[in-house]
């Protein structure tokens, strides 16, 4: 793997860029209704800046919050906002398998984003975990269905992304085990954010390759 490839891989997997699409994209969408040109310019600028400097968007947001003396838990807020569809990642193909992929990915992200609301009630949180488990399984089954049905030349990229998703799913499970021991919810939020990011990357990969 070349240095460029390594950088790209690190970049795409980096969760810091999640702030760009989870926080800023909805802002740009709102802005487009007011000033389309300005919104599009800003969007392009942020995308370019984030690509060259991963984490820049998050730094800017944090500074704005600091300036405004807004005290929020950024990780928790990010998780709550992360359920929205990211248009750039939605697969446009009309075949049922791809529609299912979009749907299952959306379902998983929505359940994960509910964690902050459920985590303090053990019974409800356990039910949420079961829902997450089912959603993960359904997403992976849908990915498998696409694999079965379609032969891709760049199948390796898809396999790799699926493997990464499984890895972060397991990491999420391990984080939950630790949480039930130490009670530190923030780690669960971080892990959930990572899993949402991986879900988006699966969609992005299929969109690129398919």
């Amino acid at each position, binding site marked *: 793997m070349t240095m460029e490839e390594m950088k790209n891989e690190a970049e795409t997997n980096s969760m810091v860029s999640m702030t760009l699409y989870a926080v800023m994209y909805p802002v740009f969408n709102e802005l487009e209704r007011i000033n389309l040109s300005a919104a599009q310019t800003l969007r392009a600028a942020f995308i370019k800046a984030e690509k060259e400097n991963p984490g820049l968007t998050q730094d800017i947001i944090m500074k704005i919050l600091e300036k405004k003396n807004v005290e929020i838990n950024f990780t928790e807020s990010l998780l709550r906002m992360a359920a929205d569809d990211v248009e750039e990642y939605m697969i446009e193909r009309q075949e049922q398998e791809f529609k299912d992929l979009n749907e299952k990915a959306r379902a998983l992200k929505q359940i994960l984003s509910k964690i902050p609301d459920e985590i303090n009630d*053990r019974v409800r949180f*356990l039910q949420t*975990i*079961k829902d*997450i*488990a*089912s959603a*993960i*399984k*359904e*997403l*992976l*089954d849908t990915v*498998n269905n696409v*694999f*079965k049905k379609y032969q891709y030349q760049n*199948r*390796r990229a898809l*396999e790799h992304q699926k*493997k990464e998703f*499984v890895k972060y*799913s*397991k990491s999420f*499970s391990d984080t*939950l*085990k*630790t949480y*039930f*021991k130490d009670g530190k919810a923030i780690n669960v939020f971080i892990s959930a954010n990572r899993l949402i990011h991986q879900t988006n990357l699966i969609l992005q990969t299929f969109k690129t390759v398919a």
Partner: protein
Amino acid sequence: MEDDVKKVKKPGLVSPFKRVFLKGEKGRDKKAQEKSSERRALHTFSLSLPDHRIDPDILLNDYIEKEVKYLGQLTSVPGYLNPSSRTDVLQLIDNARKSHQLAGNLTSEQDAVVSLSAYNVKLTRRDTEDIILRVPIHDIAAVSYIRDDSLHLVLLKTAQEVGSSPCPSTCMELSKSATMGSLSESGAVLVEACSLLVLAVDNKGAAEELCLLLSQVFQIVYTESTIDFLDRAIFDGATTPTRHHSLYSDDSSSKVDVKEAFEAEAGTFSFQSSLEAGGHSPCPSPSSTPASPQPKTASDSELSTTAAELLQDYMTTLRTKLSSQEIQQFATLLHEYRNGSSIHEFCINLRQLYGDSRKFLLLGLRPFIPEKDSQHFENFLETIGVKDGRGIITDSFGRYRRTASSASDSTTNGNGAAGGSDEALAPSEGDEWDRMISDISNDIEALGCHMDQDGTGP
């Protein structure tokens, strides 16, 4: 004056009745005192108020004892009994007391100790330590507290004894319409039956404490099983289906094809041939088996690393733990299970093969048991006292970790339920499991070669 005389106690004169009565009372008090001073101290811990919180590690790795009175156990109780319905429960208890199924007056004879852990509720006699009964946690359906005047009852609704078939309810006054049950051949109404364990404690505080402790146990078990469910879902989804038959007879498309797994990952290894051999069909000779790893095909790459790794791991362990002959037997059993024999038979035979000192090896089979048989398999593991961090009690509480930092974690509670498997797993558990994750392919390969040398086959 007479009254004054009457009122004055004359020294030296004691009513004979009082003398006998008080002497008896004093004697009994003295005996009770002696008894309580002779009794061993309970294994208990201080609990955080107000909800009597206890460190989960204590319930997982240790146990806590409380003093109770054991009134008895009612069996064949209708399964629809609501244990928090005071009227229904007291009616049941009253009838049981009348028919002497439950103790009437409470004396020291009913004194008992309830030992509570995340695995079971154990009742023993206070003085003799004789075991009265043991109820696995998964057999407890509900717990309730009912106060009847001065009596503080804690009731555990549990499964009827394992293996018993539904029997006619003994409480006809509580039976619902026949549509709720089924008719036996004799025409008697059969309803799903359960048991009711009846305990009495000193006061409301003790009852609430016991109930809250059990509640925490349930929470631990439910949490563990939820995490286990999550792990299973991830594993099931991670395996990529292939076009070939799966290992399992239910042909679940989500299960890995073991043949391809090992051809992909083990190279020279011919798993399917070895399985089918089990003594019955030819095993590829060394000359026909490629000496070098097969080049990976497109279908090979479909296989999940997770599944292949797990298979490899298990094989590796078997290699280190079983003799060649035992590996052959394992292959035969696996082959039979694959071809339709019951999970029960598979478990029993494997247990026999592994013996007591190696029964922990059964744990490694968990990922390969299909969903339809997984419950039976888990129950079987528990009955033989095998637990680890991924079973009914998993490592959500750090009790078992696959890292070097927690090599001291034990897989059992203080009651030592798992026996020999503790010694096998406790030291360097991470290494043990890692070995479990890498050797099985070589085992079966060795099996195949061994069988070839023996000249078995059609």
